[in-house]
């Protein structure tokens, strides 16, 4: 920090004009994601929650198996238990999705990002792609770990499934798919709102508050509305069996959820292009 004289000249290398490429921006976003302590902790939390919550619940259930009612034993779905970790991990994924972009606005980093990539949209695309890939891979691995652990635990009462069973593989992958879509939705929310508190509040409101409001409406209204709400639409793909008969088809529900996520990203993109940074 002390050099007063400028030692070596800044080598005016006649630069081979690299220029901005999507691959470069993707690499940059990859670096940005992993070089923040908060990101690493959030992802670790999501991973542990997704991999660990299912086996924990399964172990408790098995230990109390004899006390369960006959109906509960008959309808026990070890696949739903195996992917149940998403109830916890989704929170970390959603919050992190918002932070990926709102954190740049709160710190001013966005100005550096946009000065490097003045066309702007590649920044958003890259954030979406990188975060989607990271969420999917991590949640898929965690989901598989949870699946095998849960099946090992529930074998004692012969309620286990194998991956080859109808819908089993789809459910296990579905838990990762749902959370990937959720992550993308939340990156979109971050781009729309540019604000961490607002983004997280909106994420929680859309996913967890809307179903509560719907539930206090008359049952006929609730039954008509609730399947289309983001959480119930998105989790169809991560459900092996359904408790509530009012739900969309597996791919119809997930498709709608993806459409919500796409809408959020598109609105975020419009915002990014139009507004001053």
């Amino acid at each position, binding site marked *: 920090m002390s050099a007063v004289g400028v030692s070596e*000249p800044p080598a005016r290398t006649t630069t081979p004009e690299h*220029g901005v490429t999507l691959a470069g921006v993707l690499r940059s976003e990859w670096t940005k994601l992993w*070089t923040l302590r908060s990101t690493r902790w959030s992802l670790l939390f999501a991973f542990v929650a997704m991999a660990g919550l299912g086996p924990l619940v399964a172990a408790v259930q098995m230990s109390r198996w004899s006390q369960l009612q006959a109906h509960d034993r008959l309808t026990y779905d070890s696949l739903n238990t195996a992917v149940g970790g998403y109830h916890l991990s989704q929170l970390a994924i959603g919050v992190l999705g918002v932070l990926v972009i709102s954190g740049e606005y709160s710190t001013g980093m966005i*100005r550096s990002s946009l*000065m*490097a990539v*003045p066309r702007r949209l590649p920044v958003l695309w890259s954030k979406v792609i990188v975060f989607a890939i990271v969420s999917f891979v991590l949640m898929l691995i965690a989901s598989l770990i949870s699946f095998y652990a849960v099946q090992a635990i529930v074998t004692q009462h012969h309620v286990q499934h194998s991956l080859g069973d109808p819908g089993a593989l789809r459910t296990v992958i579905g838990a990762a798919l749902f959370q990937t879509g959720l992550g993308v939705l939340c990156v979109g929310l971050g781009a729309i709102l540019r604000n961490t508190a607002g983004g997280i509040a909106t994420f929680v409101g859309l996913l967890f508050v809307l179903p509560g409001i719907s539930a206090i409406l008359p049952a006929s209204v609730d039954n008509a509305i609730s399947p289309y709400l983001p959480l119930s639409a998105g989790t169809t793909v991560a459900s092996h069996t359904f408790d509530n008969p009012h739900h969309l088809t597996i791919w119809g529900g997930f498709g709608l959820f993806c459409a919500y996520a796409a809408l959020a990203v598109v609105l975020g993109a419009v915002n990014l292009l139009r507004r001053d*940074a």
Partner: protein
Amino acid sequence: MIEVDHVTKRYGEKVAIEDLTFRVQPGVITGFLGPNGAGKSTTMRVILGLDRADAGAATVNGRPYRDLRAPLHDVGAMLEARAIHTGRSAYNHLLAMAQTHGIARSRVTEVIEMVGLEQVARKRAGGFSLGMGQRLGIAAALLGDPEILILDEPANGLDPEGILWIRTLLKRLAAEGRTVFLSSHLMAEMAQTAEHLVVIGKGRLIADTTVSEVVAQASLGTTVRVRTPDPEGLRRALARDGVQISGRERDVLAVNGLSSAEVGEAAAAVGVVLHELVAEQASLEQAFMALTGGQVEFHAGAPSTDGTAQEVAA
């Protein structure tokens, strides 16, 4: 070269810059001077494509910043407001910037050494002092080895050693033929760094001039203070058109419109004894105030440059 062509930018009702036009030429350091809130940062943000102009256009090497294919190689910029994620280390910040352009890791290390941040490069930027933050901002600006440098108040928060360092660095960069455009609200700092000056006030162009011209303006306002036992005799000797004389104390005269040499010669010619002869030069800050103040008077529909020069001396 940077060209700002009739740019107007409003934030809601507030006009930040209005019909601003100027050029920044390569090979010299151009200072961008104006009081706080004059619109310097806004102008830079418009040049850098961060804010969209409501009217007019700003171009860099003939193209809008947003159309540059490799912006970090064309323009290196440091904004006054921090533009760094506080949770990321200096090295990783620069690396992420470099990767967008496929700039090598070795260049990241190079710019870190260039600004003297080796010791703290792996630490979180959030813990940096103002001076370290400025150095990191300058490192980011130099990353792409750009032809053009745009720096908003680069001396802010630097200790005297740091100010000397950046002044030396900028002068060398300009000598290499680069365009250097830096803002400041301190005239004295500019006088020691810049050659050319773009002065704005309240979002409008006040002057597009050279530093030496401003210094010359300042010396126009030089007051010669002279102490003599015969003030009346000296008054008679100096009385001529364009010369103003006022007495502060009984034996002291303040003379405007003559150099100290002229006063001394005139006194010698008539045999008036002088006890003291001092040229009191108006400071650059005063010249700057006169420059910006003069513009305000001009809006009100008033005086000539002579009036301005006298005001400097007052």
